[in-house]
């Protein structure tokens, strides 16, 4: 379990991270969202013991990043937003080097290297030189490197940048798999759709402050408690609006840009009732779709775009 407690980082006069706190449990995949300069990398580097917090701390399975950084390091895999690959080194040697650095016993290394190569789909590149790999492969190699010591926490700083859609999909699948293996995964990104569908927890950070934290559905609900449907009625939309407001399942209805926005509580039957009602009353219904808020709306609503 990872407990982040009031983590704060000041750079002289600038406070990059303003005391953020959250907890994550094994199996959690945490999407860390924020615009450029929001403080994602700074936070991750503090958890990775690479940067000393000005105050506050993070505790991973009982080990404190400030008091026992070495114990924390043994349990984390940190993948920065750059590769840091060595030239003149073969893929297996690269992994062997990190296995050695993580004090994996010599006898176990070949087996572990084989299995992480398999997991990241790089087995055929075992003997290739690192610099000869494509960008996506290098990215996967970096991930493989983070896995040689079977860490409890993975810190992935913008892992999907520079990947093609296919590689991205594969990466998501891989991360989901890591979550199923019971690891805590922190994934930072500013590309929202990338995160929404496979993270079970998200945090939105702006100017060093954690504006929202929790499961995606929860965060969305906080911002917008009801589901929203949009209905396109070709004639007399005002009348349709008045009619709908009478329904018990409709909390509110508004006309926005000639389209009906219906705030709705109720089950799928009630949903069907709305459509039936509109059709029965002779309104010409051209379209009816759900328009509930998603992560992107939440993000835009919560953040102001201000930067430090």
């Amino acid at each position: 379990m990872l407990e982040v407690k009031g983590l704060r980082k000041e750079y002289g006069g600038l406070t990059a991270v303003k005391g953020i706190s959250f907890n994550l449990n094994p199996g959690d995949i945490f999407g860390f969202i924020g615009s450029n300069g929001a403080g994602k990398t700074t936070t991750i580097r503090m958890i990775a013991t690479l940067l000393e917090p000005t105050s506050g701390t993070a505790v991973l399975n009982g080990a404190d990043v400030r008091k026992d950084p070495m114990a924390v390091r043994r349990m984390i895999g940190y993948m920065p937003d750059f590769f840091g690959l060595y030239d003149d080194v073969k893929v297996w040697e690269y992994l062997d080097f990190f296995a050695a650095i993580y004090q994996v016993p010599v006898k176990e290394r070949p087996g572990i290297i084989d299995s992480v190569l398999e997991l990241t789909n790089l087995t055929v590149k075992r003997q290739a030189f690192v610099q000869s790999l494509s960008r996506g492969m290098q990215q996967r190699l970096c991930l493989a490197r983070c896995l040689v010591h079977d860490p409890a926490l993975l810190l992935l700083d913008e892992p999907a940048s520079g990947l093609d859609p296919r590689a991205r999909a594969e990466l998501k699948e891989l991360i989901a798999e890591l979550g199923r293996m019971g690891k805590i995964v922190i994934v930072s990104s500013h590309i929202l759709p990338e995160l929404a569908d496979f993270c079970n927890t998200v945090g939105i950070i702006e100017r060093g402050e954690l504006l929202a934290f929790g499961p995606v559905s929860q965060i969305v609900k906080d911002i917008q408690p009801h589901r929203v449907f949009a209905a396109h009625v070709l004639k007399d939309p005002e009348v349709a609006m008045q009619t709908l407001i009478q329904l018990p399942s409709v909390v509110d209805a508004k006309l926005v840009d000639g389209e009906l926005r219906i705030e709705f509580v109720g089950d799928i039957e009630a949903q069907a009732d709305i459509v039936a009602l509109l059709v029965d009353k002779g309104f010409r219904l051209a379209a009816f779709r759900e328009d509930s808020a998603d992560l992107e709306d939440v993000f835009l609503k919560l953040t102001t775009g201000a930067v430090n």
Partner: protein
Amino acid sequence: MGSWLSTWLSGTKSVYIGNASSVRDYRVQLRGSRSVILFGLYLIILIGIAMFVYSQTADRTGFTLVQAQFQLRQFTSTIMILLGFAVAIVAPGLTATSVVTERHRQSLDLIFSAPVSPKYYLVGKVMSSFRYTWMLLVLALPITAASVVLGGASWSDVLIAYVLMSLFGLVLTSFALLMSTLASKPVSAIIWSYVGAFVYSGFTFLLSTSYTLGRMFGASRDNEASWWVSMSPFSVLDTSHTYTQVGSLHVPNWIFVLAFTLLASKILLLGAGSVLGTSGGKEIKGLRIYALIYIATFALLPSWNARPAFTPVSSASTTAVTAPIAPVEESLRFAQEQGQYLALCTAPLLIFVPFIACFGFDREKRYWPNGVFKLKNIVDGTPAGGLPFLLAIIGTLVVAWNVGCWFGAKSALRAPFWEFAFYVTAFWTFFWALGRLISSFFAGLKTSRMMVFALFVLLVVIPYPFLVALVGTFTDDANPGPWNLYVMSPFMSTSDFSRADIALAYGLVLAAMAAVMAVIAEKRIRSKMVALRNYDVQPN
């Protein structure tokens, strides 16, 4: 106890045996035929030169045995100089880029997010480049062995020469590693490493020539000499038999060199470690505490041996024997001389003061202004601990000096010494305050440090040749006027007692200026913060 020992042992073993970063470097080094070609080339050159030198000496006939002996020794000496030269060329070159390129490639973060201590990492680096340096020496064995077989040297000569040569290489390697961790570009790391290698080789060579020249002109037929004459690898053969008398024991000088260079390398590596150390500041703490201990140790050496001219004990006196002077006057003179000596011994602070005084933007932590003077920060490397640590250094030096003089010369140091102690404190505090003032103007840490260094040169070094040209004498005995305007004038004479008073006056002026600068710097820090905010950072 037993478990503590075994953890320590296994920790130490993992650092030195099978060190991962050294293994990886080794793999890369051995990849391809590059190293084979290089070593081959080296061997060919070495053998070529050896054969050439040998043929020059062996060609001529009609030598007496003594002459032949001398020629052979000359030959061996040439080989040793060549080896020393090879080490001086290869060791910095191999090491200088090692850390800075990793920083460039950004692989340092990967390593330090793993359970790797700076010590483990640096030891790995030292081993991987030292292995190369050692190969050079080992490959030369057939040639050095040949000179032994021919009678140019004894096995013990060769052995000691190899030890001293390795130590020389170790110092250069450690220095290059420090430069490599400090530099932001590989080129500057290389340049500074070679500058360091050049200065160190030159300086140690000068130290050893005092002995070798003395012998050449028959000044001393004895093998007793100050230990530092053995530091130079270029005169290894001439100095390998020197010793220092400790009590009734003849301690070979190479043992002192061994101790000194190991400690010096350790300090350099701790310095590199404290630059790399990102969390906890364990390395910088170690560096600072070690520094104080070493300063105390090395201050004891000269002060213990110092003897006022009047005392009957003076045998290995550092002071020239002059006409008999009244004891009171002599003890004043002695105090002043020791004060000057002490002040000169702080010269290395020139490098450290910009580091401990300045703050500002750098790649990482630690260097943000956090106060002017906080004792609790004395060893953690933050700017608030800069002045406390500076004072601790000078304080340690002064105390050790007094202890040395008390036990060595059995005399308490009189007022002139304390005037110099004050002067030197004020002198460095002035540069500390200057560092803070400059830091409050510039956002970049490197800029501030370089500026302090440059201003030191401008205020302290450059006036000297200028004044020499102006006044026409090197010291001020003849024409004191303009010299008194020079901040180093307290050193300009050893015989004139008024120097200590000038030192006191300079101390007061410098201290006052330091105070003013420190106050202005504090006032400016606010605007400095704004500068930081707007500093164009593009972090990852």
